[in-house]
């Protein structure tokens, strides 16, 4: 019998739709895998006790002849930043420990409506602030490729879950790379959609002008299938875009079938192809560029000069927005309350926030409060917003010359635990490859492009103009198919086998 955890999501969905496999079997297989390996990986903060009941209901509906969505019955992992009825939603923070939201985030509601079965909630850096999951209040997630290494962040839990075959599909959120960087360092695929392409309703806000929910998986097609379900206009999010999106799954299937990038103009971002990129990542990137050329893509070098200021602008805009968003954790309506008799509500708030927030969250709230203070606002926050305009203009100019931009998705392979956690600036600098897309709002994808000198995954980043997410899926699927031909399968299958503990 096929190991249901090893096959792609699309293949599993096919077996479910044809009735060869039940949702209960598929869900049980993944729950068993979680029980066997998650003690080591710690991708999950919570496993859904109701998953098998949900799966059974899908099986009953299918048996009754109901016409279900093509992914109905397939299991999915949900990043803990997303609100879920019946499952705690903590955003990786002590201040929300045990909090069960009274509503589902829109992307979660849409997955449920399509009949997908939530396996549980995945670990993350607290409030999505971090690039390693070391800032999770519940302990780090380990990289399935090397358990001494970080799985990326903030969405290290979702990326590790798919890389460790604990789930075929997962949801992430990407504010400065929290989907793409974890995908890169775990040999997975992750997509940050165009800003406004997926509803943010029910995603616990970090920086509202940057946050975007998106898919995480082992293949490009699987991400596309999830994107098709979660995307589209939502009246609950005032920044949600009202437009008709094409089928991303169709784009991915076309791309894989085409086997060629003939006619595609591809730009290599000069500023992300040099300084700060590790030699082995650079080497894999050069090979990827040659592969694109070999497949008929026309490659030119382009410049996005304002990238020089992207990290600085991001680390002003993000803390400013985060300090406002996190003001809602005031110990009144939900979350932790720490109080002593005789204290005023203001004392209680300050004591609760002191006890409930971790070091990185405090650092960014204080930084954001500083950046928004009278006397500093224009020099810092105001200038950062102007830099944002420059970056958008640079991307507009680049996309006037090319259809797609490429760069390494992360400057290095997965680093070791403890390597950067004591040095916030080193951690922030690691985000240079992914941050520009969030500032500009454009869609981006990370997909595997090989292994570094240390045998750990290296990710390729594709960027497309606003609203052109389909280009990522078309080209991404072509590149993935050509690489799989070289490797004899997708990269995820080269990961070392994890020891399964007996239950």
């Amino acid at each position, binding site marked *: 019998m096929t190991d249901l955890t090893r096959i792609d999501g699309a293949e599993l969905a096919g077996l479910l739709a044809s009735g060869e496999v039940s949702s209960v079997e598929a869900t049980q297989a993944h729950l068993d895998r979680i029980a066997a390996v998650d003690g080591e990986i710690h991708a999950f903060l919570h496993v859904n006790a109701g998953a098998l009941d949900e799966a059974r209901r899908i099986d009953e509906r299918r048996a009754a002849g109901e016409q279900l969505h093509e992914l109905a019955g397939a299991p999915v992992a949900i990043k803990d930043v997303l609100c879920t009825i019946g499952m705690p939603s903590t955003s990786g923070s002590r201040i929300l420990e045990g*909090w*069960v*939201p*009274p*509503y589902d985030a829109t992307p979660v509601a849409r997955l449920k409506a399509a009949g997908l079965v939530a396996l549980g909630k995945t670990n993350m850096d607290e409030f999505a602030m971090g690039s390693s999951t070391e800032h999770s209040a519940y302990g780090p997630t380990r990289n399935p490729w090397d358990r001494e290494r970080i799985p990326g962040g903030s969405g290290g839990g979702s990326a590790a879950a798919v890389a460790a075959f604990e789930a075929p599909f997962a949801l992430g959120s990407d504010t400065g790379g929290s989907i793409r960087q974890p995908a890169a360092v775990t040999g997975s695929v992750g997509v940050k959609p165009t800003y*406004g392409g997926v509803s943010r309703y029910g995603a616990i806000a970090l920086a509202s*002008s940057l946050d975007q929910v998106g898919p995480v998986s082992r293949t490009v097609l699987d991400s596309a299938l999830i994107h098709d379900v979660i995307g589209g206009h939502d*009246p609950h999010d*005032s*920044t949600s*875009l009202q437009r008709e999106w094409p089928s991303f799954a169709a784009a991915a299937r076309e791309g894989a079938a085409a086997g060629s990038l003939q006619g595609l103009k591809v730009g290599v971002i000069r500023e992300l192809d040099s300084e700060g990129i590790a030699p082995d990542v650079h080497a894999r990137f050069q090979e990827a560029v040659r592969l694109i050329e070999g497949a008929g893509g026309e490659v030119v070098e382009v410049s996005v000069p304002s990238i*020089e*200021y992207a990290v*600085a*602008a991001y*680390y*002003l805009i993000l803390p400013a927005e985060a*300090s406002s968003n996190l*003001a809602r954790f*005031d110990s*009144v*309506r*939900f*979350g932790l*309350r720490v109080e002593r008799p005789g204290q*005023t*509500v*203001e*004392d209680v708030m*300050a*004591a609760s*926030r*002191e006890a409930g*927030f971790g*070091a990185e969250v*405090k*650092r960014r*709230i*204080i*930084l954001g*409060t*500083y950046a928004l*203070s009278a006397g500093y606002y224009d*020099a*810092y926050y*105001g*200038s*950062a917003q*102007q*830099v*944002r*305009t*420059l970056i*958008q203009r640079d991307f507009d100019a680049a996309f006037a010359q090319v259809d797609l931009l490429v760069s390494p998705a992360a400057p290095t392979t997965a680093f070791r635990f403890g390597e950067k956690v004591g040095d*916030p*600036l080193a951690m922030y600098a690691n985000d240079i490859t992914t941050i520009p897309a969030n*500032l*500009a*709002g454009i869609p981006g994808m990370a997909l595997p492009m090989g292994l570094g000198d240390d045998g750990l995954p290296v990710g390729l980043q594709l960027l497309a103009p*606003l609203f052109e997410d389909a280009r990522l899926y078309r080209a991404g699927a072509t590149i993935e198919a050509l690489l799989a031909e070289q490797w004899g399968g997708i990269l995820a299958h080269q990961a070392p086998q994890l020891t399964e503990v007996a239950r």
Partner: protein
Amino acid sequence: MSEITREQVQHLAGLARIALTDDEVTSLTTELGAIVDAIAKVSEAVGPDVPATSHPVPLANVTRADVEGGTLTHEQAFAGAPSHDGERFRVSAILGEEQ
């Protein structure tokens, strides 16, 4: 070099309603100084003629029809509250004795 002082960090922590410990104030004073030095370069990147961007895809006047939408019941709204009386969230005294 930026001149972030302990007093400044304490003031910011008060504004942000976080009761930092003395050790935290010490480490944040150092860290914040270094971070501010690193990010201050944004001001050299732009001139006054560059407009600011607040959202990547500008939308104007997003409204919905003026009809009642779905709302939470009292029970749902209070489900995660640290303290409530069934109709209201309960908090400590708003004013201190000296006020």
